Every structure is written in structure tokens, then in C-alpha cells.
């Protein structure tokens, strides 16, 4: 008896390849998606009764192709005759062909002409193989809204003729960055839910890591892709230590490091070493390197803060941002004390960020200025976007002397 969960898992892992190949064959991402979805529904009906086919992957590809051809015939589509001649990749073909299609599909879904939320939804639906209701739940939007978002995005791809191809070299750096940004956003959405009460939404985190892993397989020579994977894995390694029994956030410095997943730490550190060896550093590699430095320290006080500050300097040189400047100030506090850190924070424009005010509050608290610290915590709490973070800040405010 094949369980529904097993069928869902198989489709999640295999359908991206089928969608990618059929998009190339039929020139229409919607046709490809619907055909694979039809195959999924057929599998849900048949497999529990007949058992798994010998090659589920091949079955999905062939069934979906036949569904697409049926549909085109029914709709008397002018591409139908062409579709009859469509030749599927056979198991003897080099795997490169399917991988090229998958890469094209990823670049299509992450095209900068699409809105960010559309890129994320498309990538999860078409590349990662999630079902629309799952994506809607993960992003806390009603299912019809998510379905509409996907329809609109696919419509734009078709109407505006967004190309299904790996971008030319001249655009590759920017376009890879756009793909990495989508995966990073998926991870972050799962890691720190921006709304709601549940701090960690594991499914999004593991999907993001799966996507990043796959991207590294598809683009092994892209050090930033390896850097992103390393960053996500090292962040994920601290998952068990990040939230306490009541679901409250625990800062890196206060985490029980014995709860860190040693296997993930080792894998992440190895990836960091591998990409840094290429000597083509970029923002994700540098952030991954910082995460690796933290992972090296058996206790918070063993952290090599001079290396962290140096990595922030490199990061800010390449990708200047107020957030990076704030995080550098936090590292500087550990290296040189709260006073220079507070001075650095004064030059940063992040008035709307609860993290900025929380950081200022922390420095003021350490400098023994309780009134100012409590006032800064009040602003941070008012700006916090999820319950776990607000609760954490209230606790810190209490420690700083607030009532």
C-alpha cells in the first residue's frame, strides 16, 4: 500500500524536473504545470491500488507529457501536431539535459521582471513542487490569493515572453543574485516568521535548503550559491538552540551550544572552506564565513570577534547596507566595548527597525544608562513584528531596569 504522504513526497522531489522539461517542450509553463498536476492526481488515484511504478520519475514525465498532448488536442491548439513529435529525455540520455532545463526553470521563476512575492511563489510551486495550499499556509495568505498570484505570474511570463533560458554571461551575476535572494527569502520566512506566533516554520527552512542544495548541483562553479547553502546550513544547525521551551528567542550568545547540530556545522564549515578557496568572495560567502567563525567557538566568549569585524568590513565594502553596518557595530561591541559600538550606531539610519532600537538599548544598558536603555526598548517593542520577539524584548527591558 503506497501512502498518500509518500506520493506527495515523490512529487515534491521529482515534479520540478518534469515541469522544467515540459516547459521547454511545449513552450508554456502553465501547460507544463497543469500536466504535472494532472499526473499527480492520477498517481494519487492509482498508486495506492497498483503500487509504485518501477520508475516513478519516468512515470511522472511520460504521464504528464501525455496529459499535455491530450489537452492540446482537445483545445485544437496549433502546437498539438508539434507536440506529437515531442521526444522525452530517455533514461540513457545524459542527465545534463534535464539539469539544464531545471536551471532554465529556476531563472524563469526568479526573473526580476516578476514581483518578489511572485518569484517566491513560482519557485516553491514549480521548482520545489509544493502544492498551492501548502505555499498559501506557509505565507499566511488565503489560498485563493496565492492561487491568483501564481496565475498572474504565469500569465505575465507567457504574455511578456519572458525567456526560458540560462541568462547570457553579461547578466549572469545579477540573475544568480536574484535567484539566491529568492531562496534566502524563503529560508528567512521560515526562520523568523514576520507575522504570527510560530517563530520557526520548518517546512520553509527545509525547502530553502533543498533548493540551495539543488542549485549547487546545477551550478557547481558558482561560489555564491555554495556560500548561500553554507549560510543556510550553519543557521539551521542552531535551530534546536534558538528557541526555549516557551517558544522564546534565545540569542546566539546565550544558546546552549551542545544543542547545535554537529553534522550540519561540519558540513557548513566544509562548504565555507570550499568556496573561500576559490577566492571569489561575495556577500553570502562572507556571511557564511561569519557563521562558521561562530560555529568554531565552543563558548560565546571564545568567539574570534576580530575576525567577525574584519568579515563585516569586507561585506560592507562589497555590499554596503545599514543592516550590515548595525551588525558590525554589535560585533565591535564584543571586540572593543559598548562605547565605540554606540557611536557607530548613531551614524546608522534604521529608525524603523526594532532590531536597531533593541541594539541601542543593549549598548545603553551595558554602559549603565538604564533610563535611556528602557526608553530604547520601548521603541523596539512597539516596532517588533512577531510575538516571540516582542516577548524577548520585554524580558530584556526588565533586566535593564524597566518596570
Amino acid at each position: 500500500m503506497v501512502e498518500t504522504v509518500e506520493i506527495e513526497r515523490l512529487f515534491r522531489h521529482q515534479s520540478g524536473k518534469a515541469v522544467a522539461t515540459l516547459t521547454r517542450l511545449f513552450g508554456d509553463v502553465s501547460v507544463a504545470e497543469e500536466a504535472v498536476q494532472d499526473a499527480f492526481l492520477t498517481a494519487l488515484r492509482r498508486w495506492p491500488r497498483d503500487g509504485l511504478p518501477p520508475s516513478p520519475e519516468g512515470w511522472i514525465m511520460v504521464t504528464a507529457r501525455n496529459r499535455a498532448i491530450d489537452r492540446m488536442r482537445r483545445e485544437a491548439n496549433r502546437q498539438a501536431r508539434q507536440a506529437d513529435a515531442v521526444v522525452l529525455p530517455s533514461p540513457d540520455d545524459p542527465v545534463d539535459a534535464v539539469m539544464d532545463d531545471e536551471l532554465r526553470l529556476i531563472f524563469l521563476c526568479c526573473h526580476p521582471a516578476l514581483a518578489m512575492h511572485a518569484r517566491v511563489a513560482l519557485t516553491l510551486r514549480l521548482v520545489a513542487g509544493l502544492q498551492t495550499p501548502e505555499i498559501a499556509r506557509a505565507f499566511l495568505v488565503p489560498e485563493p490569493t496565492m492561487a491568483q498570484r501564481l496565475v498572474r505570474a504565469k500569465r505575465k511570463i507567457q504574455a511578456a515572453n519572458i525567456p526560458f533560458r540560462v541568462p547570457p554571461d553579461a547578466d549572469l551575476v545579477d540573475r544568480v543574485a536574484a535567484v539566491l535572494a529568492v531562496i534566502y527569502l524563503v529560508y528567512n520566512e521560515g526562520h523568523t516568521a514576520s507575522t504570527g506566533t510560530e517563530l520557526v516554520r520548518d517546512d520553509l527552512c527545509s525547502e530553502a535548503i533543498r533548493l540551495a542544495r539543488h542549485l549547487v548541483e546545477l551550478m557547481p562553479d558558482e561560489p555564491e550559491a555554495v556560500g548561500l547553502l553554507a549560510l543556510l546550513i550553519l543557521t539551521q544547525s542552531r535551530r534546536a538552540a534558538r528557541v526555549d521551551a516557551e517558544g522564546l528567542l534565545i540569542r546566539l550568545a546565550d544558546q546552549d551550544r551542545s544543542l547545535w547540530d554537529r553534522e550540519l556545522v561540519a558540513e557548513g564549515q566544509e562548504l565555507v572552506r570550499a568556496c573561500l578557496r576559490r577566492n571569489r568572495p561575495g556577500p553570502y560567502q562572507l556571511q557564511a564565513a561569519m557563521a562558521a567563525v561562530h560555529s568554531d567557538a565552543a563558548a560565546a566568549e571564545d568567539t574570534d570577534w576580530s575576525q567577525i569585524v574584519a568579515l563585516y568590513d569586507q561585506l560592507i565594502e562589497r555590499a554596503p547596507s545599514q543592516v550590515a553596518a548595525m551588525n558590525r557595530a554589535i560585533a565591535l561591541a564584543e571586540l572593543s566595548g559598548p562605547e565605540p559600538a554606540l557611536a557607530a550606531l548613531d551614524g546608522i539610519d534604521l529608525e524603523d527597525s526594532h532590531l536597531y532600537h533593541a541594539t541601542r538599548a543593549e549598548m545603553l544598558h551595558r554602559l549603565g544608562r538604564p533610563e535611556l536603555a528602557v526608553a530604547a526598548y520601548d521603541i523596539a517593542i512597539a516596532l517588533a513584528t512577531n510575538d516571540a520577539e516582542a516577548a524577548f524584548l520585554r524580558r530584556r527591558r526588565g533586566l535593564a531596569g524597566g518596570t
Partner: protein
Amino acid sequence: MTQYLLSVHYVDGEGATPAEELEAAYADVDALNQTLQDKGVWVFAGGLHEPSTATVVRVVDGEALMTDGPFPEAKEQIGGFWILECADLDEALDWAKQAAVACKAPVEVRPFQDA
């Protein structure tokens, strides 16, 4: 191949552009038009007079009513446009980037429905 409308958007009522800047923009646009024609992507292009020269015609109960001024009364107005035939959106976006540089204004890229 897909045809795209590249429309140049200006903010209405913003201070007049200095004459020499305007002249430079015209020269840049001329040069771009030449390139577009040489490359075979050019279908049509034109600059428009200011929005206040527009007249709107609408039919109400079978009768044509005319009103002065642009439709709608938006802050941003189309100052000119190109119609280009390109292989795909990426090519259209490349041209749009050059158009935005030449016109010093944002350019919207929108696909035509298939004829």
C-alpha cells in the same frame, strides 16, 4: 517574436528641463532610434505634446462628449513611446534601459496581444 510598447513616463508639472539638457536628450533619442532601425527591432516611435494639449472623447447614450485635458488626471503622463519587435522580454528590457537613459525618465515595457 513579441511586440512591446515602451512608454516614457514624465511627472506632470515638474520644473521645465533646461534647454541644453533637452537638446542632449533629443540627440540621444535620435541616436537610439537609428540603432533600433539598424537592428531591425524598430516598428514605430513618437514623442507626444504635453498632456494639456489632449482631448478626451467618450460616448454617452450614443452621443460623443468631448472634454479638455488628459485622461485620467494623473500626476504621471506618457511623454512618448516606442513599439519594438523583440525576441523576448530580456531584449525589450535591454532596449528600455537605453531608452530610459536617453530620455532621463522611467520607461514602462508592456507586451502587445498577439495579432
